[in-house]
């Protein structure tokens, strides 16, 4: 019965909460609106927003050496996670059978292992940074830790279910994914989407002033 729920109703609920929650959060941002800038522009708001949208993927050279751990661990985690999400054979099979109706080439087993190791190493390094550095310890919220632990569980159960040998392991992975999807819209995990308007707002203001931010 529980397995059927995880495969069925729980998944449906998670998808609905995930999608509606994200839309609700986006409305929560944009409903406040912003005032039109009446100053005579020196540059373009749009090109400023686009510039900042991409420029922040790389650290400024002036502080690069001070934040190298952040940058390396951040890239390890995010790249490893996205490769696993998009190219792990079970994920492609799931997308083909339950979501999209089509699939694509999966990565080989060794690439899965390497990606998982990179993602885990990155996540653990970021977590260590959060609990050991006085700055991050001061500014971190419970939400930051919950998001980290949920992702850790999702990745751990995912690796355990890699060979799909036991239904129990696959169900454990699916259940943690469903929990993750329900939590996502109500947390700072929303940065995965909201980084775009945040960069856009800042970039457009600086763009109007002719500053490359």
């Amino acid at each position: 019965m529980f397995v059927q729920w995880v495969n069925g109703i729980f998944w449906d609920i998670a998808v609905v909460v995930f999608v509606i929650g994200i839309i609700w959060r986006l409305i929560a941002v944009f409903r406040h609106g912003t005032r039109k800038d009446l100053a005579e522009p020196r540059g373009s708001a749009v090109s400023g927003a686009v510039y900042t949208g991409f420029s922040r993927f790389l650290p400024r050279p002036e502080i690069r050496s001070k934040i190298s751990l952040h940058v390396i661990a951040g890239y390890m985690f995010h790249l490893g996670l996205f490769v696993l999400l998009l190219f792990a054979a079970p994920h492609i099979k799931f997308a083909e059978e339950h979501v999209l109706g089509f699939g694509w080439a999966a990565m080989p087993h060794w690439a899965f292992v390497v990606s998982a190791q990179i993602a885990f190493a990155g996540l653990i390094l970021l977590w260590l940074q959060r609990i050991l550095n006085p700055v991050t310890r001061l500014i971190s919220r419970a939400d930051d830790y919950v998001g980290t632990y949920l992702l850790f569980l999702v990745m751990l159960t995912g690796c355990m279910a890699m060979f799909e040998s036991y239904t129990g392991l696959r169900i454990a992975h699916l259940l943690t994914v469903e929990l993750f999807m329900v939590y996502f819209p109500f947390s700072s995990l929303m940065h995965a989407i909201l980084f775009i308007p945040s960069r856009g707002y800042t970039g457009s203001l600086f763009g109007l002033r002719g500053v490359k931010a």
Partner: protein
Amino acid sequence: MSAALERGVEKLKGEIDARVVSYFSSCVHCGICAEACLFYTETGDERYTPIYKTEPLRKVWQQNHTFWGKLASNLGLSKPLTDSDLADWEELAYDGCSVCSRCTMVCPIGIDIAYMIRKVKEGLAAAGYVPDGLQLAGERALKLGSPMGLTEKSLRAAIAEQEKETGMSIPVDVVGADYLCMLSSNEVVTYAEFIGSITRIFAKAGISWTLSSDYFEATNTGVQIGDSKIAAELSGRIVKVAEKLKVKYVISPECGHAYTTIRWDAPNFLKRKLPFKVVHIMELLEQLHKEGKLKTKGKFNEAVTYHDPCNISRRAGVINQPRSLMNMVATNFEEMHDHGDMNWCCGGGGGVSSNDRAIPLRYKAFDVKKRQLDELSANTIVTACSNCRMILEDGLEHNGMQQEVIGITEFIAHYLE
């Protein structure tokens, strides 16, 4: 809840817009902003982490605009903002932040942290948590027209002194002049050579210009306090005299926040487009040079460097112009290791210079500027903000350093053909 706290909380609630919601919703609390802040890097005190300085605003946003925040508030599980919080954040926002925006430039999410600290100040000011020095400067600005308490008499004295110095007549209240040059109080009492320098340069360039005796002050203490009403009132006074004198341009003098305020914020404070253009003195000097109207002779052959005022470079985009001007006369121009849009603040911006309580912290924060200067052989520092100049001179003296600080207009005027 005290009446003061209630005013502060209501003000903070009103400051929440789409940008603020997006910024707080996407912050991952990585702490990278700390590495860009001179108050953190020089003290090692994590409380000076820029995003932490926005905590009162974040708290109000969380408790009123998020699912978990509303739930926790209704269940009595979250602590509301208190008077004690505001008292603590008064020190962080006013003493430990020069609103230099360096943090904004490094945030990987793209959060404009300085924009939110400015909003935190709105809440603090509404609740009455403003340092005495800044509060008094604001009162003087509103009552007398100058944060230093100067009056028309002081302006007239400075003009007379500079007329004697240059042997030229200085235009005052000329209706129909092309340019109205505003001044900071510093440029009237401490660095009046600025007035003499523009007089000489504009005479050579054939510029039609004037000063205003009705209102000369370019600085805006309202912006430094974080009080939009005062900021709008002081901005409005500039617009009023510019309209009265029917000028086409208003020149911002050598002052960082004055330029950002008149050029970028005033139209938004006043909710209307300005009927004149605003130029920083460096923009005008570079334009005159390009048009062949500003010519120099002789060179400054000793090593010299340029300190970027944050509000002019990072927050307002005037970065290439000072370098172009410097290269007109300097043969040995040295850049500090971080400059332009990533310069380090002098430590006195955002009203810190008017806040005596912040002096020990400001001296500590100056260590980064000291290190920057120690790496160079330059004994002359040129800058384009009288407040930066004053803070640099004070910091140099405090550290027993011998460098001389000079305003860029005066530097150029010295080599006028």
